């Protein structure tokens, strides 16, 4: 069934778009990432102009993240204080990122720097998460088999310098929901870096926020998805307004199609997340991140079938 998009000025296959929304919604609900990495390229593949794909995708993020946020909230799976501080950092990062981007543009060859950085970044994070989650899974399985308390694992062998530094940071704050007492600079810093990524690399921060919250802030795994999505929801609303006002690239009909699929997908995702163990969820997420990273790396190293592409008309 074809539906005409008034802003994109073209007709699209409605069920395909809704299905795409649903798949992204499930992933977003389970892992707490936005899923823009899937939506945008698929929309462009379907022939929708890139600017409209990016602009409209923000409205879908609002819908899928808010659905998940409400569900996670009911289960008390959100640390609002943490999300708020990360959000402040995110805003600082986004705004300063715009200037950094301008600066990079001034020096030229921004594309090269950004693509290479992004590939290194995704593959690095994905690889680290993959090895960590595999080790955890093997360890728990071994522990279950031997059924003895292995002191080697529980006795933390390394209270490293990094741990020292982390503990000695000023502005300590307690996060009752996460049962953490850490410096406010940590979530703020994570937010700033996330915001920088968004404006410099132009791709969502979920990829960064989720691993950073797990390993860096040590937020309990159950709270990670909800807390990251709460932040994504607010950032997306901000982005949606910006795209609508400055570029007029938000297509209401396209948004409705995506949203209709993604709100249902997100509900399914949140329910699924209750059944997936923390380490398995991390394993799956690391595989997704690695796949995207390798796909981008492939684009850089493998000679493309078609050298030409149309930028604008």
């Amino acid at each position, binding site marked *: 069934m074809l*539906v005409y998009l*008034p802003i994109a000025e073209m*007709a699209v296959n409605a069920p395909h778009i809704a299905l795409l929304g649903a798949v992204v919604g499930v992933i977003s609900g389970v892992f707490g990432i936005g899923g823009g990495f899937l939506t945008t390229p698929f929309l462009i593949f379907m022939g929708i102009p890139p600017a409209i794909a990016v602009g409209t995708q923000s409205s879908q993020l609002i819908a899928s993240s808010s659905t998940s946020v*409400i569900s996670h909230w009911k289960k008390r799976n959100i640390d609002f204080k943490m999300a708020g501080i990360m959000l402040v950092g995110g805003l600082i990062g986004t705004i300063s990122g715009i200037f950094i981007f301008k600066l990079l543009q001034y020096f030229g060859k921004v594309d090269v720097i950004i693509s290479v950085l992004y590939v290194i970044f995704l593959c690095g994070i994905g690889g680290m998460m993959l090895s960590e989650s595999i080790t955890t899974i093997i360890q728990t399985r071994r522990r279950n088999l031997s059924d003895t308390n292995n002191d080697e694992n529980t006795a933390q062998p390394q209270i490293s310098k990094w741990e020292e530094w982390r503990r000695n940071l000023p502005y300590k704050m307690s996060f009752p929901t996460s049962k953490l007492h850490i410096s406010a600079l940590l979530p703020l810093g994570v937010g700033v870096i996330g915001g920088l990524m968004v404006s410099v690399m132009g791709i969502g921060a979920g990829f960064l926020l989720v691993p950073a919250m797990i390993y860096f802030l040590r937020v309990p795994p159950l709270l990670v998805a909800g807390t990251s999505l709460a932040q994504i929801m607010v950032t997306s609303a901000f982005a949606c307004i910006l795209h*609508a006002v400055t570029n007029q690239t938000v297509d*209401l009909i396209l948004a409705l199609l995506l949203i209709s699929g993604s709100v249902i997908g*997100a509900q399914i995702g949140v329910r699924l997340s209750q059944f997936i163990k923390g380490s398995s969820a991390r394993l799956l997420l690391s595989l997704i991140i690695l796949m995207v990273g390798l796909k981008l790396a492939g684009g850089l*190293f493998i000679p493309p079938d078609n050298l030409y592409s149309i*930028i604008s*008309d």
Partner: protein
Amino acid sequence: MKHFLPLIVFIIGLCTAYPSQAELTIDVSEPNLQITTGFSGDTLTLFGTASPKGDIVILVKGPKNNTSIKRKGQIMGLWISSDSMTFKNTYGYYNIASSTPIGTITDKQTLIHNNLGLNNLNIQPVSSKHPLEKVNRFREYFIQNMQLKGLYSLTPDAVTYLNDTLFKTRIHMPPNVPLGQYHIDAFLFKDGVLIDKTTHPFTIKQIGLAADIHYFSRNYSLLYGLCVIAIALLSSFIAILLLRRD
């Protein structure tokens, strides 16, 4: 009236006595193509009369725009967009229907002069600094891409004569057809010579809900953005209510 009768007879006689007095007229089934949210492409039917009977070429041209194309190249072993070109005033839609293949109708010079044929289009880059060989490669890609999207096409034998003077053809408009002002040019050739030419304006525009949304997004963009957010939030609430497990 009596005085005029001989004059009328004389004029009619003149017309029939001199068949070289060529005449070509066309009309389309719909005066304008109106796009609603249900639009999924359309086919227009075009009728025309030609006297004397000759080779007909119907050219439908869409709105003009600049088009930028980039090309990837290998830099330090990485495939990165390294080159780009902007063509000025390219047609957003270009469709030729003819009674026989246009190459056999007339000479190349006449085709180029009338913008007929995909290889005879005047597609030039904005900047004149590009070498000719490069311009040709980019141009070739541009035309191929437009053909792939169904926006540029060339159909010989698409114009059929119903009798000695009346002909008809169908023009397909794909779902991604650009909006704006179109021109339908009709050419009548006899023995390779262009003997008559006519133009018919034509517009493609959105109406109804699609047009309202477009207008709202352009003129009240902040409110529009807020509405999109409200709709997004509302639909997630509805989804939760509907899918609630009690």
